[in-house]
């Protein structure tokens, strides 16, 4: 095993302790729960319309996702434009 891999392994203790603490805390207190209205409400949507245009290219990035990816964080509000 390389030195690098070995040093990473030393973080297992604190990381494991923190993860266990938060998992149990949430299981007891359920602070992360709320009404999932996005799924549990009767919604009838017409087909989604839209457009896309290529505006740029990125090369040689080490990030696996786009910066600020919020496609699943429905409840994070972004800049609101009035109609």
């Amino acid at each position, binding site marked *: *095993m390389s*030195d*690098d891999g*070995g040093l990473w*392994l*030393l973080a*297992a*203790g*604190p990381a494991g*302790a*923190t993860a*266990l*603490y938060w998992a*149990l*805390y949430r*299981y*007891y*207190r*359920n602070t992360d*729960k*709320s*009404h999932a*209205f*996005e*799924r*549990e*409400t*009767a*919604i*009838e*949507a*017409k087909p*989604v*319309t*839209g*457009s*896309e*245009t*290529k*505006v740029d*290219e*990125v*090369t*040689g*990035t*080490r*990030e696996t996702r*786009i910066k600020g*990816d*919020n*496609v*699943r964080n*429905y409840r994070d*509000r*972004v*800049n*609101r*434009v*009035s*109609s």
Partner: protein
Amino acid sequence: MSDTRTPPPVPVPPVTGPGSPRDVPPAPGSSPIDPTTLPGPIRDELQAPDPVAIDTASAELKDGVNRCPKCGSTDIRPKAGTDLLVCLYCRNEWNSARVEEAFGLGVGIDQLHGTVMASGARDIAADAASLMTFKCSACGAEVTINTANAMTARCHWCRHVLGVNEQIANGAVPDAVLPFHIKKDDAVARIRQFVDKRRLFALKEFKEQFTPENVAGVYLPYMIVDANVSAAVAGKGEIKTREYTRGSDNDKKTYYDADVYQVDRQVDFTVDDLPLESSTERGNLDTKVNTNNIINTILPFDTKNAVNWNASYLSGFSSEKRNSNVANLQPRLEDELLSIARSQVEDSVRRYDRGVRWEQEQIDVIGTRWMSMYLPVWLYSYHQPGRNGGMLHYIAVNGRTGETMGSVPVQQWKLLMTAITVGTFLEAIALWIVGHSS
């Protein structure tokens, strides 16, 4: 702020002048001409009350005495586990009409324009008090009901049961009510089961004082909203075009190339029966200071089965009065609708395998329909003392579906000790591996 001394702005073309839609609309009910100076017939027309869009008031129950349609007795109770009312005198059973069919609430959502309010969802009068005094129509005595937590009372003279049925200005009377289906024994069993799965790290005092038999049946106030919405979002999306590694054996790094797209999406949708807490206290879901998110989690209810208001459904249960108007809940509604819009467009951006960063969103609420409703919740509470008044922990059971959610206070030192012990154990294994590999 505009200066009142400055002359009016440059003359405007007629399309945008006074009286056009570009003007700030006048206050509802206001008139440019004093109606008292007008001839009688015109004055009457101007001053006639505006029609309430959907009138759900029950005229036959207005005097406050709910009588059994068969024998006329007022000793009426909800029959546990059903939507029926039962007369304790002659055992006659009947129920109120389902509002869904009676007022056509399930249909025409895509045709909604503007804000339609049922009569029970109207604004609360500023001077409305919670205490209401009734004249008992059976004997004439004065009976007081505190509508903040009860909707029925027994006349202390003639033993008639009086209920608040008239849609009074303090907002206590909703359009509809959803009767309890889950019985108390069932709720107690569900709460016990919920807590039994969370005993190891629960606060010692909580476990010692745990008495689920103390659970209370409460009718909580909600606004049930139908909405017709058009939404748009815009942002950037990335599609991976190349993935490659650089560097030698021990220093390999992965790099990506990607195309960046400007993505725009529009979606029109309708939402049927979205529940919103119409009590400001319950609507505050800050988990640092309260556990109201627990009660929020047990939503939704089968609101399609709600029945027309009859105070007898509440006898034996307590209730909480509504204190928010439609206007107060509008921002919350728009926020939830935007969230729904974002979830609706997610499927259409799947091809952006490096994700999408939404930067702008826009919502146009074309029409909404508001109903005020009492929904049944079994509530068990435990007060944990602490800083800033401590924390009130709820365990809630949905009175219709039986969905159970709760907040069990934790014994902090026990949880910390366990986490540290497990962490130490993991660290020992890690050290052993590192020690043996080098």
